[in-house]
């Protein structure tokens, strides 16, 4: 992963990328691997940033970068929820897609060095956090305890299961997974993701938390983390709003006085707490 936030030269014109691989992760979620069609140059991004993916003839959507496959290949994990994401779900190896980006703020992986790191993800929210997880694992000796907590709807909705298992297999990482409902064959936890926080071992006064998932989950998670003694400034959340330009011009992603595309999507919780609690923002 190269450290630069600069978008590709013309941030309003999608660059053509070719699909080099496609995997169906869950019934409604898939991962595509992309490579720049003209010059397969390195794609510089920071964990937490997103791209605008343009499905020709259908439209454009913001999608977080969920990893790099090396050699300048980009990875996006996408949930098929509507017109554009459904269009993207039909892409096959060799098909083309337009890419603008990377845009937005990043997870504070550098600032978190020397601290415990607590990742709390819900549903597809694990995708934008995966580059941050990878970064911590690749530089494991720079961080204190590393805790990954993940909640999904049911066992068949658990994203990146093989990776969760391999992270859990490491002696230096604590991984706990829960689902909202399950049949009795499931050997894991059942209950909300906030419950996992009680059992995880980290020093709340020397930790940085990174949260991504439904806003309601993030609100409850923040309540649990602050009850444990964490400072709001050490909790970072990734926000989603509809987007169009992605560069702070159109106002589509406005969230109170902030633009999610430019000031976010990753915010220190203290900065947006009031907005999250306000109705209709």
């Amino acid at each position: 992963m190269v450290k630069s936030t600069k978008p590709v030269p013309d941030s309003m014109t999608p660059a053509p990328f070719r699909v080099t691989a496609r995997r169906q992760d869950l019934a409604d979620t898939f991962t595509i691997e992309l490579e720049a069609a003209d010059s397969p140059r390195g794609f510089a991004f920071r964990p937490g940033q997103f791209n605008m993916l343009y499905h020709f003839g259908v439209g454009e959507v913001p999608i977080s970068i969920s990893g790099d496959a090396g050699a300048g290949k980009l990875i996006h994990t996408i949930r098929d929820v509507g017109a554009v994401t459904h269009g993207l779900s039909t892409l096959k190896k060799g098909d083309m897609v337009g890419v603008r980006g990377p845009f937005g703020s990043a997870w504070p992986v550098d600032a978190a060095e020397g601290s415990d790191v607590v990742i709390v993800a819900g549903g597809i929210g694990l995708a934008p956090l995966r580059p941050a997880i990878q970064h911590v694992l690749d530089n494991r000796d720079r961080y204190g305890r590393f805790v990954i907590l993940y909640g999904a709807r049911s066992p068949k909705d658990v994203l990146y299961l093989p990776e969760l298992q391999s992270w859990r297999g490491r002696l230096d990482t604590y991984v706990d997974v829960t689902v909202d409902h399950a049949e009795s064959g499931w050997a894991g936890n059942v209950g909300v993701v906030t419950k996992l926080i009680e059992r995880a071992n980290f020093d709340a006064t020397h930790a940085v938390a990174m949260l991504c998932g439904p806003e309601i989950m993030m609100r409850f998670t923040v309540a649990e983390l602050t009850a444990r003694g964490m400072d709001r400034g050490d909790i970072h959340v990734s926000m989603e709003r509809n987007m169009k330009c992605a560069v702070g011009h159109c106002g589509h992603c406005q969230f109170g006085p902030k633009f999610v595309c430019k000031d976010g999507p990753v915010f220190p919780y203290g900065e947006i707490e009031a907005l999250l609690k306000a109705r209709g923002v």
Partner: protein
Amino acid sequence: MVKVEGLDKLLAEHPFFDGMNEDMRKTLSGCARNERFGPGEFVAHEGDPADRFYFVRAGAIALEFHVPGCNPIVLETLHGGEVFGWSWLVPPYAWTYDIRVLELTRLISLDGACLRKKLNKDHELGFELYSRFVPVMAKRLSSARLQLSDMYGRPCKKGE
């Protein structure tokens, strides 16, 4: 067989009793029993008389609903440091779900009838115990609501 002093020590180690006055805890340990269950065993079945209340010391259990003709649905899993079984507090004193053990689990149980007798005599102890129950129940209720909200499902359309 664990003696009452031993049981008091086990109760003292459980977070539910954090900061509880020693005399009160000792009184409660008179109703306590140390228990151990293996994976697949049931602590209770729906409809059974609810005469005990449990503190999980270590292990994992599942609260389940039996659905005729289908696999049971797991409502929640509980681990060390948690408590379960309020049914002894409320008539008709019957379990409202099955309790299945997921892995080797150590529990301390309190006898409901014994407790009711003590609480009737000692209201201060009753108040102390209820003050500890209520936050746990409130948290469980709030978690259950969050679980029901299907928060990982589709968010609503603007204005929906």
